[in-house]
């Protein structure tokens, strides 16, 4: 479920190492001065080679600048388009296709920007900075409900060219499918490995996730136990009825020389089939329902795991077998001479 909760957005942020310099002469201090900090883009490649990379959902660098559009100042953000939605799957991007991260002619504009300048997907417009003009085609309109609605997203390469910050980024947003405790270890590993950056856990997101996960886990555990108990009772009652209806048949089998073990095996084989079919159908119905609910509530899809299929089918079969123990025992108590008389 943690993976699905990554719809909350990035949970780790890379920021430049402290760029504050102490200015002084000998014992005389003139105070401190700080400059604009950057992370080297070349360092980012290491993120994918770390141990924590197996839990990495996605990451994207951010490079900010300001450009003029129709004589108005607009915040320009350089990103990797293809990773942007991976990191923030709940963002609504109205785009006919995923834009390549190296595409320097396209832009994704925030919904407020689109409204202000009357732009739609497919339109072109110009922006300028320090006397240079760039013509961009609107490839998508982004709606987040946040500050992104007022921004202009372009490929990182183009943003670096426009702002004159070659191979540099301001921040990196990373999304990991792990809990709060593990996130701290991930951040420490990132800080150690990437020389130009400090990694910080976005605590609010991590805590919200953990709290939500805890509540959901409790609710689902209670629900699961309840559903399993109800299923067991239903299976038990159904099998008891079957055993009662088949008293004559069981009596006949015994008269024909069937051993108790053989009759029990026949019942259990039937139960096994019921469990397998029930588990199979239940799994796909459950996944369908969960996907629909999750999409509606969180606007992100869920990713069913193959292992959970086997767990669900295994539990379904297990519940059926356990619930059938009593009815099968009842069935084997049949006295053939009595049932064959029709009593």
């Amino acid at each position: 479920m943690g993976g699905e909760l990554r719809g909350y957005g990035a949970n780790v942020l890379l920021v430049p190492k402290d760029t504050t310099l102490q200015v002084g002469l000998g014992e005389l201090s003139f105070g401190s001065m700080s400059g604009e900090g950057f992370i080297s883009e070349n360092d980012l490649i290491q993120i994918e080679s770390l141990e924590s990379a197996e839990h990495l959902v996605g990451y994207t660098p951010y490079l900010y600048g300001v450009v003029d559009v129709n004589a108005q100042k607009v915040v320009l953000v350089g990103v990797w388009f293809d990773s942007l939605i991976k990191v923030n799957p709940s963002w609504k991007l109205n785009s006919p296709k995923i834009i390549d991260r190296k595409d320097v002619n396209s832009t994704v504009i925030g919904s407020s920007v689109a409204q202000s300048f009357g732009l739609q997907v497919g339109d072109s417009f110009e922006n300028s900075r320090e006397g240079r003009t760039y013509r961009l085609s609107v490839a998508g309109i982004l709606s987040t409900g946040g500050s992104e609605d007022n921004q202009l997203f372009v490929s990182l390469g183009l943003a670096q060219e426009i702002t004159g910050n070659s191979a540099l980024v301001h921040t990196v947003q990373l999304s990991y499918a792990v809990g709060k405790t593990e996130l701290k270890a991930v951040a420490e590993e990132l800080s150690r490995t990437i020389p130009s950056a400090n990694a910080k856990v976005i605590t609010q997101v991590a805590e919200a996730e953990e709290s939500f996960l805890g509540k959901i886990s409790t609710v689902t555990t209670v629900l699961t136990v309840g559903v399993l108990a109800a299923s067991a009772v239903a299976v038990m009652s159904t099998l008891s009825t079957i055993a009662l209806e088949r008293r004559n048949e069981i009596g006949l089998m015994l008269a024909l020389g069937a051993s108790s073990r053989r009759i029990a095996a026949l019942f259990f084989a039937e139960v096994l089939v019921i469990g397998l079919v029930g588990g199979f159908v239940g799994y796909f119905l459950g996944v369908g329902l969960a996907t629909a609910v999750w999409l509606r509530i969180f606007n992100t899809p869920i990713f069913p795991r193959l292992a959970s299929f086997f767990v669900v089918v295994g539990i379904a079969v297990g519940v059926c077998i356990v619930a059938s123990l009593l009815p099968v025992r009842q069935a084997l108590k049949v006295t053939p001479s009595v049932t064959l008389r029709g009593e």
Partner: protein
Amino acid sequence: MVSEIVELKDVTKIYNQKVSALEDVNLKVENGEWLTVLGPSGSGKSTLLNIIGGLDRPTKGSVIVLGMNIAKLNQNELAKFRRENVGFVFQQFHLVPYLTATENVMLAQYFHSIADENEARTALSKLGLSHRLDHLPSQLSIGEQQRVCIARALINEPKLLLADEPTGNLDHENEQIVLQIFKKLREDGLTIIVVTHNPEIGKLGDRIVEIVHGELSTNFKLLKGG
């Protein structure tokens, strides 16, 4: 081969510690003999048959069948005894309604050893049911259902055939068909015990015993062998 295939010694059966179904019954059945047990309803003749077939246990006494005292066998041993030695023919046929005639016969094979469809079809064909092999019991006449029941009883080549009112539900024509089958089986050397309230059936067998209120009548009639 023992000459006495069945020997009952002082067999008593009391239900619920108060209803006496059989009282000190002593009976011997020779190998290859057709014995008819006559008696009115409630006389204890079905109880006697069930005890000989290992479907029920006596309250007292010994039941020696094929040299084994089956009164002392446990449930699994009794099941083995039944599937290897006894074929049952019931008045109500007790065919499984959702299985075809062939499958009903194969059911007995399945519990005995290996289900063999060809063998089951041959057994049914021998009883004149070659045109009814794939029919469900509900698609068969009463007489045909009883013949399926007989085929099922014979498919594992039992040493003892036990029939409880085998013609009780049949019309005269079908009764004659079934009795002719029994007569042929008797000629082939199969030991048959039939319980019935119809004295006419007894005439086809070797010997008749009567049972009244759970006691065998000493005044039974000995007939000529079939």
